[in-house]
């Protein structure tokens, strides 16, 4: 296939971003060696009371939630027929695919014997476990995302017939994606339904799976907006006219959708609070923290999104997207780390070590490098001239 | 706080609180009173004194204010008034004076208090059912022997009259009738005498006494519920050949009671040395340890010495070898009880009925008794002080 020469930019290799990425990758490689030769205790602060740290709290929980843009965008475009969002689908699918791939990569660091990760799926199925549900769905969804992503690769590689076949599967894959996402996004929350005695009552609820699923929707939408703004800044030269023309509509549409979903989320959170009659906890320290999360990082951004949409203020919406993404991270951290084991004395609580944080950054850095490679070489932010007409 | 005999006597003998009324020759009228409904005032009625709580209940009633109100008012006001006169030292005028156990310790206690005179009997022949029969003109039935109650002795051993007379100074059967009455909250006389959980009943109070350190070694390990014929006879001790010999007249009954009490001779209990082996070798754990030389006679002598300090103890252990049952439980009173291993299997226990194996039985009794009787050496965990480690 022919490529438009203008898409490949000739940029200097040594930029501040590249240097930072390079350092993180180098440290990550060293830590990888340490982790797999010395065991978890060498690089993590995990202990018997706190078996899950930020590799689960950030890499798994946040990773999966923030990669939800894949199913939200593709279902909006293909199932709900909102064709004007089409140019957002490919970047969203790519980031979702990368996100899930990195989640799985991170799990290899976290679990004791990563080479056995296929065991629960192929060897012995612990069907009573919500983690099994998560594992199976993530595995299947990663496959789905991979297949959804292949058209872009095939266009790049020049396999029009294969691409044709996959494109025909689009609707099936999208529906499958929504089903699998619903299941594993919610069951990530449901993982914690087994520990009413360890998770603070303000965060523990029978509705945990619902909270996780609904929050994944606006997490996904906000992440698409956030990535979009980053891509506009750093990858502007890779975008075609369609992408640029549609982007404003996408920002407004997604901002509005996120605002509505977040309002609904706040409502069911309040319902959950009432069902368990946990109001009195609001007047404790944890209560203040809970309100900060719910009001400061969900209700307020929802409101600001609404304002941004009304005033057609693209920048405001994009900034709110970052705010919302931080709120999701805060929520996942609260459930997995801060409100978890809340009854333990502070000496027995967990705080991540620098090496754990470095590994998490390492995995994010890998994501950025691959994203840059793919968007540079494959038709993600623009339509391939040979496949223009059909979608 | 407890207003005991000592405090009562100090108030009785205090010159400062002698009532102004000339006709009263003692202090009683200063506190004790009855309420004259017609005159709408309180008046002192000699011979009707009783505890404050008999009328002033825990909460306000139509008849009288709560005991909390009246004590704070009457006691405190009197103390303050006397304090104002600056004649002598007075009782507490601050909260801690009555409500702190620390402060209570500093209050002077008078050991030999003259007997309170309230026309109470010295000795009582408790035979309510038989007296009822006589009153109804029937032949009394010799169901169970009457009890002789040494009222005078119990006055000295108890701190206040309320220990037994919890609601009035009348005799027990006035409220607790044989068939139960509203006055006695439908608690029958039998219950009132034998209720194990109630410190106001005979049995209940005696059971409390078994918790004293000198008694607890054996009695803590015994089932507190079990009462056998032998136990009944300890109190139901008036032996009459037949019911016709029962004196119908109350003076004769009192005479009978006095003579029975006079006949109670309680010399120190002592067992024949021949019957008490000097040492017993115990080698249950011969696999790991040398046999333990159990100083059997030393233990018996110690127990007897502690027992003989206590009148109640002597009274209830007057049967030969009754004290042996502390360890040789479930055995008849004999100098040759069966060996422990007869019932306690030497084989490792597999709980079928909860009966301990031999090792558990020995350790349970030895360590349990040492623990209860405050014998600190050897410590429960100092294995080799009882049985030397096998070399």
């Amino acid at each position, binding site marked *: 296939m022919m490529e438009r020469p203008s898409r490949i930019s000739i940029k200097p290799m040594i930029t501040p971003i590249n240097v930072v990425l390079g350092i993180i990758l180098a440290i990550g490689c060293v830590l990888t060696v340490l982790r797999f030769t010395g*065991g*978890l*205790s060498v690089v*993590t602060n*995990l202990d*018997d009371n706190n*078996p*899950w740290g930020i590799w689960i709290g950030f890499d798994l929980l946040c990773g999966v939630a923030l990669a939800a843009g894949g199913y939200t965008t593709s279902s909006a475009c293909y*199932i709900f*027929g909102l*064709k004007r969002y089409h140019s957002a689908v490919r970047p969203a699918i790519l980031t979702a695919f990368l996100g899930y791939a990195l989640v799985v990569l991170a799990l290899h660091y976290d*679990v*004791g*014997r*990563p080479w056995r990760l296929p*065991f*629960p799926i*192929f*060897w*012995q*199925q*612990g*069907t*009573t*476990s*919500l*983690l*099994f*549900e*998560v594992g199976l769905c993530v595995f*299947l969804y990663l496959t789905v995302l991979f297949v959804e992503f292949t058209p872009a690769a095939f266009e790049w590689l020049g396999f029009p017939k294969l691409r044709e076949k996959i494109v025909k599967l689009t*609707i099936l894959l999208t*529906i499958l994606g929504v*089903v699998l996402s*619903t*299941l594993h996004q919610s*069951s990530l929350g*449901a*993982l914690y339904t*087994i*520990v*009413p*005695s*360890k998770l603070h009552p303000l965060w523990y609820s029978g509705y945990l*799976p619902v909270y996780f699923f609904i929050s994944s929707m606006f997490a996904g939408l906000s992440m698409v907006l956030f990535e979009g703004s980053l891509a506009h800044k750093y990858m502007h030269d890779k975008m075609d006219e369609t992408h640029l023309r549609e982007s404003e509509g996408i920002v407004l549409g997604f901002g509005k959708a996120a605002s509505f979903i977040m309002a609904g989320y706040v409502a069911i959170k309040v319902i959950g609070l009432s069902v368990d009659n946990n109001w009195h906890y609001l007047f404790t320290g944890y209560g203040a923290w809970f309100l900060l999360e719910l009001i400061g990082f969900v209700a307020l951004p929802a409101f600001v999104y609404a304002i941004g949409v009304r005033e057609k203020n693209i920048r405001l919406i994009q900034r709110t997207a970052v705010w919302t993404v931080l709120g999701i991270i805060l929520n996942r951290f609260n459930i997995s780390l801060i409100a978890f084991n809340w009854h333990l004395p502070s000496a027995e609580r967990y705080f991540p070590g620098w090496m754990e944080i470095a590994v998490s950054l390492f995995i994010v850095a890998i994501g950025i490098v691959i994203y840059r490679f793919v968007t540079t070489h494959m038709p993600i932010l623009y339509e391939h001239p040979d496949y223009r007409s059909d979608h | 706080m407890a207003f005991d005999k000592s405090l009562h006597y100090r108030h009785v003998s205090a010159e400062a609180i002698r009532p102004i009324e000339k006709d009263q020759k003692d202090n009683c009228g200063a506190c004790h009173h009855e309420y004259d409904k017609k005159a709408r005032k309180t008046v002192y009625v000699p011979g009707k004194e009783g505890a404050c709580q008999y009328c002033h209940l825990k909460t306000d009633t139509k008849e009288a204010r709560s005991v909390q109100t009246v004590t704070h008012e009457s006691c405190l006001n009197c103390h303050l008034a006397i304090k104002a006169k600056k004649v002598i030292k007075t009782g507490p005028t601050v909260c801690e004076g009555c409500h702190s156990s620390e402060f209570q310790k500093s209050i002077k206690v008078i050991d030999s208090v003259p007997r309170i005179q309230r026309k109470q009997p010295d000795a009582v022949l408790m035979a309510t059912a038989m007296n009822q029969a006589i009153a109804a003109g029937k032949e009394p039935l010799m169901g169970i022997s009457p009890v002789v109650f040494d009222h005078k002795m119990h006055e000295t051993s108890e701190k206040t009259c309320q220990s037994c007379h919890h609601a009035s100074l009348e005799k027990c059967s006035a409220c607790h009738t044989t068939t139960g009455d509203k006055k006695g909250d439908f608690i029958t006389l039998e219950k009132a005498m034998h209720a194990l959980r109630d410190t106001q009943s005979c049995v209940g109070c005696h059971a409390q006494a078994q918790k004293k350190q000198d008694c607890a070694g054996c009695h803590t390990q015994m089932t*507190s*519920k079990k009462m056998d014929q032998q136990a009944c006879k300890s109190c139901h001790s008036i032996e009459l050949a037949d019911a016709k010999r029962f004196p119908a007249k109350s003076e004769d009954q009192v005479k009978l009671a006095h003579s029975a009490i006079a006949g109670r001779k309680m010399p120190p209990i002592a067992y024949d040395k021949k019957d008490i082996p000097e040492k017993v070798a115990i080698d249950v754990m011969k696999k790991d340890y040398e046999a333990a030389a159990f100083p059997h006679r030393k233990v018996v002598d110690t127990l007897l010495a502690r027992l003989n300090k206590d009148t109640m103890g002597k009274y209830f252990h007057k049967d030969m070898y009754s004290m042996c049952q502390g360890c040789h439980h479930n055995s008849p009173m004999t100098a040759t009880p069966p060996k422990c291993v007869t019932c306690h299997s030497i084989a*490792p*226990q*597999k*709980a*079928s*009925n*909860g009966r301990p*194996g031999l090792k*558990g039985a020995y*350790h*349970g009794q030895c*360590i349990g008794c040492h623990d209860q009787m405050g014998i600190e050496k050897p410590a429960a*965990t100092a294995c080799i002080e009882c049985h030397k480690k096998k070399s």
Partner: protein
Amino acid sequence: MGISRRKFLGWFGGLSATAATAASTAIAGGNHHFEGHPDTMGVLHDINRCIGCRKCEEACNTVNELPKPEKPFDDLSVLDQKRRTHADVYTVVNQFKIGNEKKHVHVKKQCNHCMEPACASACFVKAFKKMPNGSVVYDESVCVGCRYCMIACPFNIPAYEYDNAFSPKVTKCTLCYPRVQKGLLPGCVEACPKEALIYGNRKELIKIARERINKHPDQYIDHIYGEHEMGGTSWLYISGTPFSEIGMREDLGVTSAPELTSGPLSAVPIVVGLWPVLLTGIYAISKRKDKVAEEEKAEAVKAAENAADEEMKKQIAKIKQDAAKDKEAAIKREVKNALDEAAKEAEEKAKAAAELTETADAAPEKKEDE
């Protein structure tokens, strides 16, 4: 565990061939109620009887062939610190001082062998199993090391070999499964000098515990810890001190772990069954909507085109007519005014009109604008 509740993932049959096995057990699960294995054994720990000698710890260490600790087992200073189970410590005795009393209370801690274990319910590779004799045993050969069992355990018992890089295990008390199979007592029970631990049928143990409480109501709290906690445990405890004061949580509730997660799990078939149908429906509706919209659009365009065509024809005709008229008029005028030249000019004019018609054919809109 969980025979009572292996119900849900049969629905995955269509998604994954591996779920076929789950489907068969799902049917077997049905509506019957599983009350636990009748022969479930357990241990009754009478906390009042424990003297804190650590003989049980020593025995546990020996029978499980664990590494010897730094301080020997007869060093009781270890009790000064509150401890928990670790990778090479399956049981610990903790010491508690109650109020101002001189005496200490000692409590042994180890896996409670739940009737419906949280660890087994949480394990996604079925590494934990509740055996008919009550033991909850662990199969190292399948364990992935995700440590969700440790998250799930309400008693904080399973420990992990964090410093083992190649074959890290989860470790915990097995209720001496191998010894019990041989007819021996669990190591700790056998070693206890005070019989503060007794091993037996769980139902019998409950009776014994009740009897002790009834016989000595002043010496025991009227509660058997483990009879109902988290759905019941094989280990049972009685004590004279409130359990919450001796490191045993009384706020765990009586709901077993599998029950806690059954709600979310039962949502799986709903999602799997409902979503695809619903989403296909929505897709069909939105597609149909698009199609209708497209058809309407096409029609409108066609109509507009047709209208434009007719207008054009009219105009062309008009232009031609005008041109002809002009021509005639010109000829008339020229005939009147001039002779040969005038005739030539008239011919040229007609030519220009014809050209104009051609342009009008090519771009009628332009013409319209004009």
